């Protein structure tokens, strides 16, 4: 469904993504694991196209020169140079790191904004679905996004991304900064979303333990390159992964 070939991203002369090849299978959950600065977020921004916007702004400011090489194709179409909003229309929706909820809009409005690409019927159906998987949000409909707790914001961010009717949902560090209880709850919710809606998911995380069990196939990133890949089981049994990402 998604195919990334020989992807390289440079910030000036520093390499952020080094020759990554990656595929996401239809209906599967693919994981990307790696420490801080391994290139997870850059990869997510490159797949969703946001990096092109950053690049344009930096060029206007005369700031950092960003170079993207390689090829990204989605459902057989080359999308390497496509605008982020066009990619969203094709079904690639990013739920960004640190959530980036619209702070001055209420929970309900955040979801409505998420439904920008959806038809009325789709929006209504998805909103009901979001409230079924995240019943906690029901009582917070009128609360402004900026006043929600981290966990609530993360649920809202996932809900908001679902409203955009994604075919491929990109989750960038959805568990960042949450309590273990919330981590487990969200991991379960992500698993359920994948099972119930059949949406393909690409998820990146620093801390692999809560996520690895729900992932079908995973990649381990280090300094911008993919050093390891394999099925969930293969990764779990790998001694290096165990020591590095499970803290065992």
């Amino acid at each position: 469904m998604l195919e990334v070939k020989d992807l390289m991203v440079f910030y000036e002369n520093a390499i952020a993504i080094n020759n990554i090849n990656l595929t996401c299978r239809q209906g599967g959950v693919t994981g990307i694991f790696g420490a801080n600065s391994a290139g997870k977020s850059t990869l997510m921004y490159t797949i969703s196209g946001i990096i092109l916007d950053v690049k344009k702004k930096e060029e206007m400011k005369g700031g950092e020169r960003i170079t993207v090489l390689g090829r990204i194709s989605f459902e057989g179409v080359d999308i390497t140079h496509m605008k982020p909003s066009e990619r969203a229309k094709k079904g690639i929706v990013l739920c960004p790191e640190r959530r980036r909820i619209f702070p001055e809009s209420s929970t309900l409005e955040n979801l409505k904004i998420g439904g920008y690409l959806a038809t009325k019927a789709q929006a209504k159906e998805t909103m009901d679905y979001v409230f079924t998987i995240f019943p906690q949000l029901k009582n917070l409909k009128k609360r402004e996004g900026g006043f929600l707790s981290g966990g609530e914001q993360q649920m809202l961010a996932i809900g908001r991304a679902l409203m955009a009717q994604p075919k491929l949902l990109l989750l960038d560090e959805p568990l960042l900064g949450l309590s273990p209880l919330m981590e487990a709850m969200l991991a379960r919710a992500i698993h359920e979303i994948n099972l119930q809606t059949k949406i393909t998911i690409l998820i990146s995380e620093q801390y692999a333990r809560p996520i690895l069990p729900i992932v079908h196939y995973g990649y381990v990133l280090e300094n911008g390159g993919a050093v390891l890949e394999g099925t969930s089981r293969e990764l779990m049994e790998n001694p290096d992964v165990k020591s590095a990402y499970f803290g065992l």
Partner: protein
Amino acid sequence: MDILIYGTVNSVIFALVAVGFTLVYGVSRLPNFAHGALYVLVGFLTWSLVNDFKVFYPLAILISLGISALLGALIYRLILIRLRGLPTSEIIASFAVGLIILEGLRLQGIGGFKGFIGPFYVLPAFIDSKLRIAGVLIDAQRLILIGGGLCVVAALWLFTHYTKTGLSLRAIAQDEQAAMMLGIDSDRAAVISLSIGSALAGLAAVIILPLGNVTAEAGYRVLINALAVCIIGGLGSWAGAVLASFVLGFAMIISTALFGSVWESVVLVGAIILILIFRPSGLLGKQKELEERV
């Protein structure tokens, strides 16, 4: 009582002039310095349509507003789109467009065009009558102005809270990239906000201009008023713009009543200076650093 009524009228004038400017800036961070020029242009267009082409007055207004909205979209599509992210260039370019429009209106001699110069251009009032409210004589146009101002603010509020396009504009205003991830195109949002902003400048013109005559010089004053309101209210804050309009509107009327009308502009500029010293982000402006606290 005089002060209350005429202060309100004056405040609504400020609000009408500023609301379009603040909408564009709030959504797209584009300072539209052609705002005043579009205001004057709509005044002259309407006048010309009514007097030269004998178009029915309300229809003339609608046509001029349409042209203004189209111009706003063109300004973005042709010019500002190349400059996004360069604030100084955005200001210079949009001000240049404003200059071309304003000075173009005064141009004489091309194709028999006499130029809009002198005090001959007056738009008719919607209803020409005067009435007395609580002992104060007031003409109907000023009441229509207050009503119109309220309608504009209410319509904008409903638009940005309950329609898909309006919500998408607010999304872009709050976090442009997060909005893009959900499929909202920022160029499209900028075009929409600039057309609405330009149409609002025109709407302000047709509501306000029947109170006096139409002159090209008014364009500069309108721009300065809009800027003053936006700086005092907090750039891009809609509630702030409305609040600042009332602060400025009343401050000017009160100072005129107490010290004479020479002090009007002193109050305007003084208010800007005071705000910049004591609350640089404006009355209701949010300092960006606060958002990073999480």
